[in-house]
């Protein structure tokens, strides 16, 4: 149950403070009001990400502990409200704080939101009242204290003026004795007072007593008195004391008691309705007070059922209570809605008391009722207010959690809309270019009922001139709140009416104190009066929206800055970093990968950075940095930095430290440059200077130093080669030492910093040309890049090179010839060993048989076989001879031949075979009709390929042989394709063009043709290849 102050406070306050924290108590959002409060009270500037608790711990330990306890409760999932004081010790303020956990989509608690209302004023008011009344009393009492003194030895009594005033006595009574005084004391109290005094005298102590006195004026007074005995040598000599008139207090206490009784009586009599019902629930008596509360005359209700006018929803409850009461003979109480004479329902609380007859049975029930509408309304308001606060908490938490502001706003207004029962919530942003001329709809939420009725398409951009009253109100930072019917601007009113809007609330959103846009709430169901709490919630929410948008602006600026420095870093080839000293975190520019070969993640934090510094440099670097940090100086350090694996890069690291208000360095910004190239170049310069000096004396070639072509220095060699004197060379453009046709090449090489040797044509002073090899290197020299160029006259080398190339060509031709000859030799070996030796071995065997037999028939048979073998040897020798002839006939005369003509002759020769096979021979010689080739060879090629195709035709189909001539790379190509049996090239491919090889069990296979034409074609530098597929056909390709 929230504190009673909250409701009032939130209604009176428009500056609700809210902030949210993550699980580590770091700010994820806060309202501007919170920011201001923190600044006002603690003089601290908070920011997103700052740890609130850590901040508080430093400021006030007890506040820290208090807050931590509350935060932890919320983080543990508790929703609660607490009133507590926080402050800096001088000023303590009272806060009514509501704590709510923030959940993510998985219902995990990821933080908390705190909504704060300052209630100091109220608390102080209460305290002030308490204090002042106490003071007043004290003052009054002080004013009423009378002092007396009784000298026992003389029996004189001194009475102070105050005592005389209290008793209403004049100065004449100043000499009143103690005994005289006692005569004024109330008879009922006199003995007690005497006893008190006697006791005091006997014990030498003191007394305190209350008694009544009736002085001469006859008005009784209540007196609180004290007394104390003073001793002299152990004997009481003096007594002194005070008296206070406490009559008023005594009277007040009595009056209060009496008034309470009166009040109770009054309330009972005036507010209650009393009725009597029978056990069936019918009125048998109705008190007149019903008229006042319900508007019914008592007679109207008499005899009717007590249940008749109860709200249907409450009826079951009341009926049950009624039955229970009768059954248990016990009183029951119920709250329910009851229809009054106007037909409206009012909330009633009724107690039913069963009345028993002498038999102990319930006879009637006395119903005493009172109107509790007001209390109910208050409860309702309280519930609504609670819902509002939790809506605000939830909406605020979305703004805190969502990284995308617009999504966060979308969700937040959704929650707000649902909880407040609004119909639409819209956020409009002013057009940044035209200031407040127009605004654009950025985020919208529509309730389920209004879904589809929202047609803002055409007017998503809303011109303020349509609603001058709206603009006036918003731009002066005032909320525009109106029923649509009351809006003065016609265009605006018409538009809203078209959108079914009944009431609007438009709250201006401030960003950086500027009018940024507005949040609009539309009520469409009915004209509605916004409650104070709703309004407070809304304003608080809008303030938070403003803060969130400010945060977004800052983020955007940061991003832009980030982008800017990324661009700078990328273009300069340097790594820029931002080092947060306390945390050790370093933000690296994204180009670290390009510059150092390390991803930003690999660069890591300060520790990892330190680890990458070369061990020999580390101590020096850290010491130097430490000095700069302490002194706040900028630094420039060179060190070796480990990039990938074990390789180091020479870095130049420049930067500076940023100090906080206390002079402590908290941030370091710097730039790293890879200077290994520069270092290398410096090293190379040294090396090349030495070399240059050496070369100058010893080199056969010329050496020149030039800057963008202009010769700075040269050696004697350069003079010797070019014919220019040293003096002529210095200052001359080196390009002029190059022949015009080579100059562009040289300029290009200079521009690209080419460092490998290359050949050009040089030109001497006398205009003669020579082959020149140039070899240059870039060298940093006194702040600029110069080139060291070596000139070498390579005329002789060029000539030798040409000779070598020539010889190489000859050699490779020779080698090729040799290779071919070797291959041929191989073939001959094969031919001789197989084709000639086997008939010879047969002859030997047969001769042996011949000698051993006597049978003349057998002898005759052996002779025939011997003859066959001899013929075979002769045929083989003839074939060999043919092939050898081909090999030798390399230079056989070529003639221009028409394919068509040669083919005609071949067709005639093969006419019988073609006719027998019923073969179709088609030709395509159109594109390349001619070839320059020996007639006899072309004829041989055609005869063999054609007869081959006829021989190996497929038995199941008409043989088709297609001949086609084409040209490729200036070589004539003849393609002969058939649809015959085809050959399994995988298996027989290596044998195709071999002598005496056949691949078909074909009677005519002789195995000579392909070997022959291959020899012929190759002898003239051509080639023949085959492609084939079994049962599909074969294609021979001849490249002439």
């Amino acid at each position, binding site marked *: 149950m929230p504190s009673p102050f909250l409701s009032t406070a939130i209604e009176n306050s428009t500056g609700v403070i809210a902030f949210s924290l993550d699980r580590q108590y770091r700010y994820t959002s806060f309202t501007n009001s919170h920011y201001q409060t923190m600044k006002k009270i603690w003089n601290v500037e908070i920011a997103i990400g700052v740890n609130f608790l850590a901040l508080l711990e430093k400021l006030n330990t007890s506040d820290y502990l208090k807050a931590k306890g509350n935060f932890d409760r919320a983080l543990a999932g508790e929703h609660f409200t607490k009133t507590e004081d926080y402050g800096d010790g001088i000023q303590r303020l009272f806060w009514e704080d509501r704590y709510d956990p923030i959940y993510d989509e998985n219902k995990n608690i990821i933080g908390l939101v705190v909504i704060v209302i300052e209630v100091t004023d109220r608390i102080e008011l209460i305290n002030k009242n308490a204090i002042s009344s106490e003071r007043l009393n004290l003052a009054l009492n002080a004013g009423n204290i009378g002092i007396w003194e009784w000298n026992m030895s003389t029996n004189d009594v001194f009475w102070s003026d105050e005592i005389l005033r209290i008793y209403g006595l004049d100065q004449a009574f100043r000499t009143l004795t103690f005994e005289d005084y006692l005569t004024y004391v109330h008879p009922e109290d006199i003995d007690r007072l005497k006893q008190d005094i006697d006791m005091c005298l006997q014990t030498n102590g003191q007394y305190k007593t209350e008694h009544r006195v009736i002085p001469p004026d006859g008005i009784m007074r209540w007196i609180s008195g004290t007394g104390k005995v003073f001793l002299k040598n152990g004997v009481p000599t003096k007594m002194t004391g005070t008296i206070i008139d406490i009559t008023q207090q005594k009277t007040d206490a009595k009056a209060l008691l009496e008034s309470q009784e009166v009040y109770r009586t009054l309330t009972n009599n005036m507010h209650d309705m009393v009725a009597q019902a029978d056990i069936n629930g019918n009125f048998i008596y109705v008190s007149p007070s019903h008229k006042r509360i319900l508007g019914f005359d008592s007679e109207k209700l008499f005899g009717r059922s007590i249940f008749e006018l109860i709200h249907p929803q409450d009826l079951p409850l009341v009926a049950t209570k009624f039955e229970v009461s009768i059954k248990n003979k016990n009183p029951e109480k119920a709250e329910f809605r009851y229809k009054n004479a106007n037909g409206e329902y009012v909330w009633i609380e009724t107690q039913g008391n069963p009345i028993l007859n002498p038999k102990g049975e319930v006879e009637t029930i006395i119903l005493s009722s009172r109107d509790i509408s007001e209390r109910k309304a208050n409860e309702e308001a309280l519930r609504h207010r609670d819902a509002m606060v939790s809506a605000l908490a939830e909406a605020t938490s979305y703004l805190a959690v969502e990284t995308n502001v617009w999504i966060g706003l979308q969700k937040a207004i959704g929650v707000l809309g649902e909880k407040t029962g609004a119909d639409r919530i819209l956020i409009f942003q002013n057009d940044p270019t035209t200031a407040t001329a127009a605004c654009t709809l950025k985020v919208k939420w529509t309730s389920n009922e209004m879904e589809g009725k929202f047609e803002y398409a055409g007017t998503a951009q809303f011109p303020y001139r349509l609603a001058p009253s709206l603009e006036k109100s918003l731009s002066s930072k005032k909320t525009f709140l109106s029923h649509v019917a009351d809006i003065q601007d016609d265009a605006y009113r018409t538009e809203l009416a078209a959108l079914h809007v009944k009431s609007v609330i438009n709250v201006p959103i401030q960003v950086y104190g500027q009018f940024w846009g507005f949040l609009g709430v539309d009520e469409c169901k009915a004209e509605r009066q916004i409650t104070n709490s709703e309004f407070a919630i809304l304003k608080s929410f809008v303030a938070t929206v403003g803060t969130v948008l400010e945060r977004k602006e800052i983020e955007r600026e940061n991003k832009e800055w980030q982008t800017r420095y990324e661009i700078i870093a990328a273009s300069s080839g340097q790594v820029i970093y931002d080092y947060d000293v306390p945390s050790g975190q370093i933000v690296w520019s994204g180009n670290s990968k390009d510059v150092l070969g390390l991803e930003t993640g690999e660069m890591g934090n300060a520790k990892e950075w330190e680890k990458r510094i070369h061990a020999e440099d580390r101590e020096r670097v850290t010491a130097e940095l430490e000095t700069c940090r302490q002194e706040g100086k900028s630094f420039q350090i060179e060190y070796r930095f480990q990039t990938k694996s074990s390789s180091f890069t020479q870095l130049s690291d420049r930067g500076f430290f940023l100090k906080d208000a206390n002079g402590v360095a908290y941030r370091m910004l710097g730039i790293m440059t890879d200077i290994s190239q520069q270092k290398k170049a410096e090293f190379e310069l040294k090396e090349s200077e030495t070399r240059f000096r050496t070369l100058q004396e010893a080199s056969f070639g010329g050496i020149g130093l030039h800057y963008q072509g202009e010769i700075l220095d040269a050696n004697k060699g350069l003079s010797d080669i070019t014919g220019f004197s040293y003096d002529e060379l210095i200052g001359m453009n080196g390009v002029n030492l190059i022949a015009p046709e080579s100059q562009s090449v040289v300029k290009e090489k200079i521009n690209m910093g080419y460092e490998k040797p290359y050949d050009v044509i040089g030109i001497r002073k006398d205009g003669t040309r020579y082959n020149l090899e140039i070899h240059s290197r870039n060298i940093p020299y006194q702040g600029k890049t110069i080139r060291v160029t070596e000139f070498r006259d390579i005329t002789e080398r060029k000539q030798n090179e040409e000779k070598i190339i020539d010889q190489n060509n000859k050699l490779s031709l020779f080698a090729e010839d040799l290779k071919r000859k070797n291959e041929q030799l191989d073939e001959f*070996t*094969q031919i001789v*060993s*197989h084709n000639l*030796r*086997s*008939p*010879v*071995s*047969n002859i*030997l*065997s*047969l001769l*042996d*048989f011949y000698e051993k037999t006597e049978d003349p028939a057998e002898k005759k048979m052996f002779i025939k*076989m011997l003859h*066959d*073998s001899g013929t075979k040897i002769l045929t083989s020798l003839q074939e060999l001879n043919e092939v050898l002839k081909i090999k030798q006939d390399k230079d056989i005369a070529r003639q221009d031949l028409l394919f068509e003509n040669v083919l005609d002759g071949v067709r005639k020769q093969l006419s019988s075979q073609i006719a027998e096979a019923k073969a179709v021979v088609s030709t395509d010689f159109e594109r390349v009709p001619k070839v320059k080739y020996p007639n006899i060879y072309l004829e041989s090629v055609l005869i063999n390929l054609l007869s081959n195709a006829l021989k190996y035709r497929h038995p199941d189909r008409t043989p088709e042989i297609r001949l086609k001539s084409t040209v490729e790379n200036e070589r004539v190509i003849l393609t002969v394709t058939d649809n015959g049996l085809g050959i399994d090239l995988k*298996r027989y491919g290596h*044998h195709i063009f071999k002598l*005496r*090889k*056949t*691949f*078909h*069990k074909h009677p005519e*296979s002789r*195995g000579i043709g392909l070997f022959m034409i291959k020899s012929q074609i190759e002898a003239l530098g051509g080639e023949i290849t085959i492609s084939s597929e079994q049962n599909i056909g074969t294609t021979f390709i001849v490249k002439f």
Partner: protein
Amino acid sequence: MAIIALVDDDSIFQFTATRLLESSKLAQNILHFENGAEALTFLREKALQKELLPDYLFLDINMPFVDGWMFLEDFTTLKSSLAKDISIFMVSSSIDPRDLNRAKSFSEVTDFIIKPISLERFQELLKSAQTIE
């Protein structure tokens, strides 16, 4: 007595060899194949009929269609399915050492013989083959 297969396209060699084997009574039966393909077909068909498979096979290198080398390549995959171990003699008129070396690379080849083959040589070969067995 053994069954001997002669695989050679040379009809005169077939004749002379047959005559020698018959006269010497070295063979129970002589099978004639004109080329590797015919021999392979026979072996595949009679793979499980041990009584019909040859004990010795004289294989010529140079033959049309499926030559000696191609026969050997197929035989290496075929032999495990045969009911009988067959000793193969490579026969050629070639005196080219490359042919000899190549023949040795086949474990299936028992020996490499250069034509002509005398009766004594036949006897010697078959005897040594039997001793090995």
